[in-house]
C-alpha cells in the first residue's frame, strides 16, 4: 500500500490528498491542487477509496468522515 501504512497511519502524500478533498474534486483538480502527478493521484484515490477514507461521487472524490478523522489523528 502506498498511502496507508501497516499500522493504519497514512503517508504525507495521502494526508495532502485527503486534506485537499474536503469538497468533491476531480482527479485532475486534486493533482493540480497538491502538486502531485495525475497518475499517482489516480492510484492513491483507488487505494484511499478502498480503505473507506474517500468516497467517489460521479467523477469526483471527497473525504469521508473516517477520512477526516484520520487527518485529525496527525
Amino acid at each position, binding site marked *: *500500500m*502506498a*498511502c496507508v501504512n501497516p499500522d493504519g497511519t497514512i503517508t504525507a502524500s495521502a494526508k495532502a490528498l485527503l486534506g485537499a478533498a474536503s469538497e468533491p474534486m476531480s482527479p485532475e483538480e486534486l493533482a493540480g491542487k497538491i502538486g502531485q*502527478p*495525475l*497518475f*499517482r493521484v*489516480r*492510484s*492513491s484515490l*483507488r*487505494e484511499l477509496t478502498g480503505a473507506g477514507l474517500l468516497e467517489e461521487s460521479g467523477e469526483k472524490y471527497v473525504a469521508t468522515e473516517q477520512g477526516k478523522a484520520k487527518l485529525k489523528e496527525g
Partner: protein
Amino acid sequence: METQEEVQVMPKLPRLGEPAPEFEAVTTHGTLKLSDFKGSWLILFSHPADFTPVCTTEFIGFAQIHDKLREMNCELMGLSIDSVYSHIAWARNVEEKMGQKLTFPIIADLNKDVATKYGMVMPGESSTETSRCVFVIDDKQIVRAMIYYPLSTGRNMDEMLRLIQALQTVDKHGVATPANWRPGDQVIVPPPKTQEMAEERVKEKGMECKDWYFCKKDL
C-alpha cells in the same frame, strides 16, 4: 470419455499504432495501472537488473531528463524482474552514492506479467532478465515507438527526448520528421497519395520540393 482440450493463448506483443497492453503492477510508487497514465505520454522502459552498472548509468540518465519530459507532458516508468525491496534499496543507493534521486516509479515484475505482455525478455540474451526495451505510449495509450537494445549497451537519453519531440511535432502539425531531425529543423510534408494530389503538390507554394513526393517546410 471426456477429453480436456488445452487452449494455448499466444501472447500478443505490442504493435505500433495499437493500444498498449493494459497492466496493473506493484511499483516503487504503489500499485499502478497503465490507465493511470491516460492523458499524458509515457516512456515505459525495462532494464536487466538492479545494482548493475550499465543500468545505473541509464537510470541516472532517465532521471536527468525527467523534468524536460514532464514539460512535454511525458512520464517515465521503469521495470525489471526484481522485487520492490531491491528497487527501493537500489534507488536509495543511487541517490547516496551517485547523487541522483530517482523520481519515477519502477515496476517490480517478479511474475513477469508486464515483461511477457510487452515482449521484454529475449531468451537469446537471458531467460530471467528483461533486455533494454523502450515503449513510447501516447496520451491516448497507443504505442507510438519501440526500441530494443541488448544487455550490453546503454541507451541514449538525447534520442529519448528527440523521439518524444518528433512524435509530438508530428501529431501537432500533421507532418513527418526526416532522419536526424531536431526541433527547429524543416519537417517533411507527407507525400500525396493520388495523381491529382501529386499534380497539385508540385504547384504548391510554401514548401521546398525536390520532387512531387519529397517536400520539406519550416514550421
